[in-house]
């Protein structure tokens, strides 16, 4: 799957877990997802479950590095590197 398709898939997912009072259209790819208030730190769990199920990423080998899940850009990088 190409980067653009992954990005759209990720954005659709983020839209389902974002904080009710935040707006997707105000987020840039390099913005911190938590810092910008789009999601809370708990939503990280759902991002992990999403990456495991949709892209087959196995975090049990490497553990979770929250820095790698900080922004849309970094998550897409992770998908590029680790997706099966």
């Amino acid at each position, binding site marked *: 799957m190409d980067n653009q398709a992954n990005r759209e898939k990720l954005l659709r997912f983020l839209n389902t877990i974002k904080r009710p009072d935040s707006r997707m259209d105000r987020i840039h790819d390099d913005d911190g997802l938590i810092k910008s208030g789009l999601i809370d730190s708990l939503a990280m769990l*759902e991002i992990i479950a999403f990456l495991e199920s949709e892209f087959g990423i196995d975090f049990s080998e490497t553990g*979770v590095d929250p820095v790698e899940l900080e922004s849309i850009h970094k998550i897409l990088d992770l998908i590029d590197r680790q997706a099966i």
Partner: protein
Amino acid sequence: MISRDHYRTITQFHENERLWEFSITPAGNISLWIAVALLLSATDYRFLVPVMFLAQLFPAKRLWIMGIGGGGLFLLKKLNQLQVFQTFWFAIDVAIIIGLIYLFYRISLSFSKLPKIVKSNPQIALHLILWMAIIAILFLPDDFRQNPSWVFTANLNVCLIFFAFLVWRLGFMLYSGKRGSIKKTNFLDHLTYCLPYLGSSQVPFAKGLEYLTSKMADGRLDLAKAQLAGLKLLLLALLWKLSLYLLDWLFFSSDPNLPPLFRLYHISQLIAISATAMPHLAVVWSSLILDMVYETTQLAIYGHMIVGCLRLFGFHVFRNTYKPLLAKSLIDFWNRYYFYFKELLVDFFFFPVYLSFFRNHPKLRIFAATMASACFGNFYYHFLQHFDRLMISGEPLSFAKFSSYLFYTVVLGLAIFFSILKEQRQRGKEHVAPPSTWRTLRQIAGVWIFFTILRIWDHGDSSFMTDTTFFFAIFGIRF
């Protein structure tokens, strides 16, 4: 009358672009350091000011300067606290502690060559080594006594305490080894967080090197932003200190010459007094709530000083305590109250369990991970931390104290689990209108009352039966 915009301009001065630019001019920079020196002058952190200034002069060597300068100050302070200041043994202790960090640095560098069982469970292996060392000391004469007569045992105890102190930091180092990022680092970089003059608790503020370097200021203007944000935290710490004086003056003063205007009690005093004569319930509830505010303010001051100094070194790190009064759910409060302790539990207990078990059972997966962190990890952390207190103040390990804390962690774990589920149900919903002020206030009050009551099982003189009896008494039930 100050308008909302003016108020924001004053309180958010660190986000003012003109101020960023001014603070990189010679006059601005001198003003900044004068303000920092004044704010830190009455604290233990004053010794860090020249180290911070040096780090500003040589930003590329910032980590080394923090590691050597901060590390040196840390060792002096900590070993002085443990009263082992004979020069010979001091040198031996320092060599062993640095040697221990170096050993784990080498192990982390060669992570891929470790046996498979260790590679799969590096944190468990690390804690097994620590426990083997603890058990070995029990076989030595004088073991964990505070002032053993055999100087060798005394210093061995000191090194063991440091090992217990360092264990979470060494854990972060092993994570860097596992991810391979440690290969881009030098040994001296790791002293920055392993020997932290900035905050001498077992909780690594700003976590390990990976996190710290990801927050490092890049360039002079970016450094100015971080420094101004640090200055703001130091000012906030000063403001909270003044509010503590006010609380003392109004309610908690223990000075017999200056009694408070209205006598309230800190939680340990309150529970001790209540065992013989229960004060009026209004006094009890006011004491519980205001003591919770008092303790949260103390924690905020402690965290603001450490994070403020880290920002002055040029790291854009999160606050440890961030507006806990605004928390609308239990999990939100836990995030805002003691961020770096929560992060420790999440990194070492929550995620390992979450990633390894019950993948096909989402609720069970979250339950197991939450109980592993908020309950087991929380209890284990405090149990290990107790070795420090045992040696510094002679406070014995007691079943009564830990049984009370065990109850605290079980209730906390369950409460956070249900809070996570509730938050998950609400996430993604589009709100037509924001919740009413009344509803928000009710949510905040509920969170504070929950943690105020739960603290009954977490205070300096905890004992499960006494604490539980007191809990019923505050609802008028006595037996």
